[in-house]
């Protein structure tokens, strides 16, 4: 029987080591993005656009539907209470503010982590076990510049875009409930939405989405590049990247929400 303190200590140290390594990967990536072009070694534009299409364009449909349904649900849940106060029009504000500040960025991040993050981990993991990463190194091509940078940039750019789409679709969802269920006027709904929604609600949500994008990119690339052990290893990496991304996204959400709303930023 191993000493429980030893076990916990071991896990803790392991996690610390991984966090340091992910930070190292992050700084390496940033270095390549900003210093690479000066060495004549910018990341391939074609690669970046391909990744943007995969991460962003191909995620639009799922983000579209999830956000609309979320908007519908928020509207229905809050309408129940607001009706009793005779303030059903405030549903519009409830939906737009919750979406912009919280649910837009977070749900989009979870969708992207599940779809894009897992694909990145699987692809890089497969490359690792089939010696392709080693082949890149032997050809004097840096895997971070080649593989990580395009995926990182794609996520950092596409996450805020997808979040804005999510915010908008959430409002549409709320409006559907408002108009068909709550007998609200479309024009009034829209006006009310924007009357209460502040710019701060929107930009704090966007900052969150960028932070989530960075986290998802780093975690899935790191886990993918560390894969070992054949097909089973790739499967493990894929699952691991999603699970860790989910946890870290929520964690970052807690930190940033606290930062934005309790420090009067």
């Amino acid at each position, binding site marked *: 029987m191993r000493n429980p303190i030893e076990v916990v200590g071991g896990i803790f140290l392991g996690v610390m080591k991984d966090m340091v390594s992910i930070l190292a990967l992050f700084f390496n990536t940033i270095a390549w993005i900003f210093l690479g072009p000066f060495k004549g070694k910018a990341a391939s534009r074609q690669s970046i656009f391909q990744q943007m299409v995969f991460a962003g364009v191909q995620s639009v449909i799922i983000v579209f539907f999830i956000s609309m349904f979320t908007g519908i649900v928020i509207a229905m849940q809050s309408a129940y209470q607001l009706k009793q106060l005779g303030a059903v029009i405030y549903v519009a504000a409830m939906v737009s503010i919750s979406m912009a500040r919280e649910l837009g960025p977070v749900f989009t991040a979870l969708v992207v982590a599940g779809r894009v993050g897992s694909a990145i981990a699987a692809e890089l993991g497969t490359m690792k076990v089939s*010696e392709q990463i080693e082949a890149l190194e*032997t*050809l*004097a*091509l840096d895997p971070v510049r080649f593989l990580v940078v395009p995926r990182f940039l794609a996520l950092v750019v596409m996450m805020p875009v997808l979040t804005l789409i999510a915010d908008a679709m959430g409002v549409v969802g709320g409006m559907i409930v408002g108009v068909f269920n709550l007998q609200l006027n479309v024009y009034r709904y829209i006006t009310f939405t924007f009357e209460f929604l502040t710019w701060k609600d929107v930009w704090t949500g966007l900052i969150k989405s960028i932070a989530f994008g960075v986290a998802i990119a780093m975690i899935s690339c790191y886990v993918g590049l560390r894969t070992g052990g054949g097909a089973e290893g790739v499967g493990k990496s894929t699952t691991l990247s999603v699970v860790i991304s989910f946890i870290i996204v929520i964690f970052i959400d807690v930190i940033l929400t606290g930062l934005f709303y309790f420090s009067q930023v």
Partner: protein
Amino acid sequence: MLQTDDKEVVVEVTDLVKEFAGRRVLNGINMKIYRGETFVIMGGSGCGKSTLLRHVIGNIKPTSGRVKLLGTDITDLVEEQLDDVRKKIGMSFQSSALFDSMNVGENVSLPLREHTKLDKTVIDIMVKMKLELVGLRGFENLMPSEISGGMKKRVGLARAIAMDPQIIFYDEPTAGLDPIMSAVIDKLIIDLSKKLSITSVVVTHDMKSVMTIADRIAMLYEGRVLEIGTPVEIKRSKNEIVQQFINGSFDGPIKFFQEKDDYLEQLTK
């Protein structure tokens, strides 16, 4: 026979030791490889030959000892510093390691596109030349998933020679290939050596291959070099382990029947 006394040393391994989790995989390797020769490193599975190869190309760092590649001591160099010397070598991987997201032509032209400022039309011609050398003219637009294992190996080889390297390293070049394809690869290794004056370092345990292509052979066993010599010298070796290996006998000093405890002890030695 190759005169080794006055030739340039392109790979030099000195007292190389490598430990993985307490187990000594390489236990004091010393070898010199000369320019222009085809040097074969052979040994049983798990004897450390692939690990040795990866030390020589700088992908692994030793526990102790030194590695010199093309005159540069690469033992302590980090990734970026290795770039210069890596551009002068090529490697053929056991699994061919072609990039799945690119087609054959893009795979072969990758080092040219990244490391040179050559025009696209010039690169296309060079790709055609390299594919012609490996007998795959016209295959540029196929994806790796659409070609056979033997073809993948040859494309990997074409990619390895794209930058006209001075040394090519082969990790089990004939593994998993049928006898005809194995003979084709052997011929390619010899051709490249003769036509392009390339030094070849081949890790393999395919005896037919070894005897066909080698100028000199190094036999590895349990992390040490048992013997180095020409094919003739190795065939005449008085070492029982070498003889068992080259004759492919299932029993001898390397036992068929092994006690489980002996095996486990050997693993952790």
